[in-house]
């Protein structure tokens, strides 16, 4: 049960103090950055499925966080941080979709997959991002935020849901993951 240890690295009182300091002095943000870097990176990685894109997204998230730190009024810094991460990644997805559709409109992209692409696609169905992409958006959002160490209440605040709705979505997500991992063919089929 090693993975189950999910305790938060910085306690609430420490966070309140550190956020107050970081508002006055950008250098004082470093402890919070260190405390949350891995989690933000993992969150980006799960959503994007690519280490380079995850690194860029992590950078974008922390840039936004530093820019808007003065506006952090929440009692919980981490829920505020992951709300920014969630919004940043949603914006990135939107931009990516727009770029793809532009390529399609201008016919800049070869629609047919190359043999290499097919091989990579087959491999990526086994990756976490591919697995998570099989979940409905609301379940996926809930599970990804849950895996960063947020509570149902905090996730609900970010996604605009009631905690019990979060619990239900999370339960469905876990059940679905069980089903998908038990039957990998179904995963590949659905992914296509």
């Amino acid at each position, binding site marked *: 049960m090693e993975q*189950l240890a999910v*305790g938060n690295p910085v306690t609430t009182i420490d966070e*309140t103090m550190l956020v107050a300091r970081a508002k006055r002095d950008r250098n004082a943000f470093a402890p919070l950055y*260190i405390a949350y870097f891995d989690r933000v990176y993992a969150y980006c*990685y799960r959503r994007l499925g690519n280490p380079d894109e995850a690194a860029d997204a992590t*950078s974008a998230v922390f*840039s936004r966080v530093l820019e808007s730190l003065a506006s952090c009024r929440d009692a919980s810094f981490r829920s505020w941080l992951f709300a920014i991460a969630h919004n940043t990644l949603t914006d990135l997805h939107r931009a990516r979709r727009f770029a793809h559709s532009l390529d399609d409109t201008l016919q800049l992209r070869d629609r047919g997959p190359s043999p290499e692409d097919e091989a990579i696609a087959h491999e990526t169905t086994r990756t976490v991002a591919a697995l998570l992409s099989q979940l409905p958006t609301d379940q996926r959002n809930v599970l990804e935020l*849950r*895996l960063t160490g947020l509570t149902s209440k905090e996730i609900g605040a970010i996604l605009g849901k009631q905690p019990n709705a979060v619990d239900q979505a999370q339960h469905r997500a876990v059940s679905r*993951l069980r089903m998908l991992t038990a039957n990998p063919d179904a995963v590949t089929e659905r992914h296509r």
Partner: protein
Amino acid sequence: MNPEGQARASRLGQTWDDLVSGHPSSDASMDLLSEIQFAQEVTSVPSPPTGLQAKVWRRVHGGELPSALSAIAISPSPNGVAHHDIALDLNHRTIAARTLDLLGIGRILAIGMIAGFAAGFMSGLWVRLAMRIAGSLTSDRNRGLLTQEEAAVGQLTIGGTLFLAMFAAMVGIVGGVVYLAVRRWLPRHPAMRAVSYGVLLLAVFGFIVMDENNTDYQLFGPTLLNVGSFSLTYLVFGVLVSVLVDGLDRRVPRPRPLASNHARTGAIVLLASIAILLVRGFGPGFAVAGLAIGLLLTICLRRFSTRTSWRLDFDSPVFLRVSALGLIVPGLFGFYLTVQGIVAILAG
């Protein structure tokens, strides 16, 4: 989702919440825990590549990421135990955050005062023991004589002992607060820290007991033994207060933000209690007037605090320099007086 499924979803959410908050329930179902473990395992991703953290920091911040900052975040003081993690910043803060600051200050002050009181009481008993030793070693012709404090030599009463212990406890409260002020500069090792605080107290405040004009030191019992046993009082107090403060600081939970509904309920209960007390004590008219004035003052205070720029950071370099200077100068003067007192007593 059927009711059974909803109940299971709710239990899974609660179990996961408990894990996230670092307080897993002992009666959590293994079934639910294995669900969580499964979700974590199938969605686990690789750790960030080495150096990425520093690289991203350079990109977003522009500077170098200081090393070993995690430790500083948790314990900013050099000895790792005495972090004054309180920055009272009334600018751009929510009322809840300010309340937390004040609760944090109240908590640590209460710990210092309680520990000081308890350590002072026990040190008072030690003083009584030292007096008993001195009394028993004095010559028979001195028995029954009055000391400078007008206590009869050789006669120990429970009332006198309690009075002395309570007096020491009251003085000890100050000693507990002083410990809070200086502990960040004391050694890291708990035993060394405790002993060094006792030695520091003897050095700085020893002159209060080591009074060269007090002839009791020479009259009753061996002078050297008297000086030694009464000097030990500081050491006993220093050790006790250090152990008690550090122990309580570890055990007493730090204040946490209240949920707004809890805060609201608390405020209503407080106001209702004040209203009942006022009505019972002074009548309904006075109660209404009192509450109205209280409300007006609260609004004024809130407006004042949000418009002014007060900042009191106990970790700021300026505060630390001023407090160090404020401790060193009187400390050196006290040390001089203590040494002078001891030398004069021993010289007879």
